[in-house]
């Protein structure tokens, strides 16, 4: 598809500039030049042959929409991307696909590998910087954006929680804390930490009975959800309010208790000791697929030099969001799960913040390519044209992103009496109709313990939204 688009684009460019066509016919001069031209053409064909990352993900997305994560994993294994510089992305996608199949252990192995590799690749590479300034941004090793690196630990923690290893989940939560603090250090005021990651951290500490650590994590989650409300339209969840009240009450923080009561408008809640006889079910429902990056490009003709300049930039393309409400039925009572993470909004805002740097790099690249083509053109018009074409086609936007992430994450917490319970979840569309439902039968609840139930739903259509 990329090839067709780029070639038709090339045709248009050539048709628009007869001077360029003329130069092609003038290139029959020396065999040395022909060799150079041949090399350039070869490079052009080679580059046009590799579709962008985002396009290669189509096969995986089709399988996921068909409800077939194992086939999606096969598709991923078949196409691991461009070696080491896409390795992190491959590992992240692999981890989530394995998680979808319920293979939490292997999923964590992949995440652990990704962590190590990110650590290694975090240093600035001189070679890759040079490549990204002269060829394109995809020559840089992918190490994930800030929110993706936070979610890496979130998923590792969830995997451990579902494996029944809360201490290991605690390790992830501590690593997350170091990461989020480092990220916050490097950012301005507009930056928000991952509020859901903080909320989950609180859950892990609460499960281990570390009340003060849980309080700190919940408090940080609340602070960041207030920013979420401002930037992404995600309110602080009521379940977080209840957790804050329980912890503040238990730790004797009267002033905070009063504040949270007012902020969440909660009149009555069950204090912590009264809940110790019950068990809790934590339901985490992820819907859809994260937005994909697409390439947007623009070509400008510089007539004085007879050189075309092309600039390609990434843009997020969000999919339609069909879920209006997530309803939970347990013990003949219904409740709604709350939105805790809107990855659509996170991704779009993150890219927006990165755009000035990406654009500056693309422009710098355009200048380099323009000068090389111009100087070559002054010596030999044919060679100049070919270098110009190679430069234009090699200009690709970096469309890599962790595309197996969900679009949204919902969370619900329910305290239930010890014993076996039947829990069912319904996803309702915007019109109130049932989109999908899932039954969890025989969920064993133990007093003072937490059970994590997760469900990933991907709507059975692939190409939602606008292109």
């Amino acid at each position, binding site marked *: 598809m990329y090839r067709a688009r780029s070639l038709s684009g090339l045709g248009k460019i050539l048709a628009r500039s007869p001077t360029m066509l003329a130069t092609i016919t003038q290139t029959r001069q020396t065999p040395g030049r022909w060799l150079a031209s041949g090399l350039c053409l070869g490079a052009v064909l080679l580059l046009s042959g590799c579709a962008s990352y985002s396009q290669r993900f189509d096969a995986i997305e089709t399988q996921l929409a068909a409800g077939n994560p194992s086939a999606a994993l096969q598709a991923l294994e078949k196409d691991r991307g461009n070696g080491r510089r896409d390795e992190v992305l491959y590992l992240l996608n692999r981890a989530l696909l394995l998680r979808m199949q319920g293979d939490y252990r292997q999923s964590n192995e992949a995440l*652990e590998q990704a962590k*190590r590799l990110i*650590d290694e*690749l*975090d*240093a*600035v*590479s*001189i*070679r890759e910087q040079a490549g990204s300034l002269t060829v394109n941004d995809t020559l840089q090793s992918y190490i994930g954006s800030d929110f993706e690196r936070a979610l890496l630990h979130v998923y590792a923690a969830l995997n451990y929680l579902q494996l029944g290893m809360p*201490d*290991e989940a*605690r*390790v992830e939560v*501590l*690593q997350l804390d*170091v990461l989020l*603090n*480092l990220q916050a*250090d490097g950012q301005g005021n507009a930056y928000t930490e991952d509020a859901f990651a903080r909320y989950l951290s609180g859950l892990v500490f609460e499960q281990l009975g570390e009340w003060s650590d849980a309080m700190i994590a919940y408090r940080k989650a609340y602070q960041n959800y207030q920013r979420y409300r401002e930037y992404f339209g995600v309110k602080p969840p009521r379940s977080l309010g209840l957790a804050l009240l329980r912890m503040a009450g238990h730790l004797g923080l009267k002033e905070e208790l009063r504040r949270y009561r007012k902020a969440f408008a909660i009149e009555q809640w069950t204090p912590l000791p009264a809940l110790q006889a019950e068990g809790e079910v934590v339901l985490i429902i992820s819907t859809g697929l994260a937005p994909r990056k697409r390439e947007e490009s623009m070509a400008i003709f510089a007539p004085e030099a007879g050189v075309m300049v092309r600039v390609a930039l990434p843009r997020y393309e969000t999919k339609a969001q069909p879920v209006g409400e997530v309803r939970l039925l347990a013990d003949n009572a219904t409740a709604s799960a709350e939105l805790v993470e809107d990855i659509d909004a996170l991704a779009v805002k993150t890219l927006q913040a990165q755009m000035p740097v990406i654009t500056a790099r693309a422009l710098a690249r355009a200048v380099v390519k323009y000068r090389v083509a111009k100087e070559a053109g002054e010596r030999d018009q044919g060679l100049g044209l070919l270098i110009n074409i190679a430069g234009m086609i090699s200009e690709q936007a970096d469309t890599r992103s962790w595309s197996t992430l969900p679009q949204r994450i919902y969370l619900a917490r329910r305290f239930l009496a010890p014993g076996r319970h039947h829990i069912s979840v319904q996803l309702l569309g915007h019109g109130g109709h049932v989109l999908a439902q899932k039954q969890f039968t025989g969920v064993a609840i133990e007093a003072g313990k937490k059970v994590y139930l997760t469900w990933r739903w991907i709507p059975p259509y692939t190409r939602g939204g606008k292109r």
Partner: protein
Amino acid sequence: MANPPAGQRPQAINRGALKTLWVLLLAVALSACATKVERIDTEEVRDLSGSWNDTDSRLVSEEMIRDVLSRPWINRYTRSHGGKPPVVIVGEVRNLSHEHINVNTFVADMERALINSGNVEVVASSTERGEVRGERKDQDLHAREGTRNVMGEEVGADFMLKGTINTIIDAEGKKQVKFYQVDLTLISMADNRKVWVGQKKIKKFVDKRSLRF
């Protein structure tokens, strides 16, 4: 390639030097391709990433073993129990650190040292004894009378070894200070008394590289 005329000697040297350089570069490039294995002593310190590694585990077990065997709890127990050595069971060593640390390495080292000292007995931990009990049950049904080990004859432990690993991490940019503290405790099963507390602290400064090729 023909020999250069006598007047162009300096250029010939240059060419020769260039050739050598190419060969050297090629050799360097190729040598990096092959997997290299080098056996090193288990005592040798090699820090790669700054994470918890074998050296840390060894330092912990050396310190703990030295400490646990030199303290008075063993003699006190033996004296008050008519010469019977104390029996220890290994409980949980909780990893409360920032890393996924395998605690089995130094716990196994300690177990070995305790048993080899001859002054302490160690019984199988709760995770190990499941299989042993299964086998005993099986013997009850299938083993010959004289070789059968009956159930209900296990030795009860007098002390339980428990512990935690904690870390404090201070990070800024590419620099990190990592502080590990390992605490091990022997708790008396009879009355919850702590008869021994061992501690090992390790501190590291990690400065990650900020440039790569």
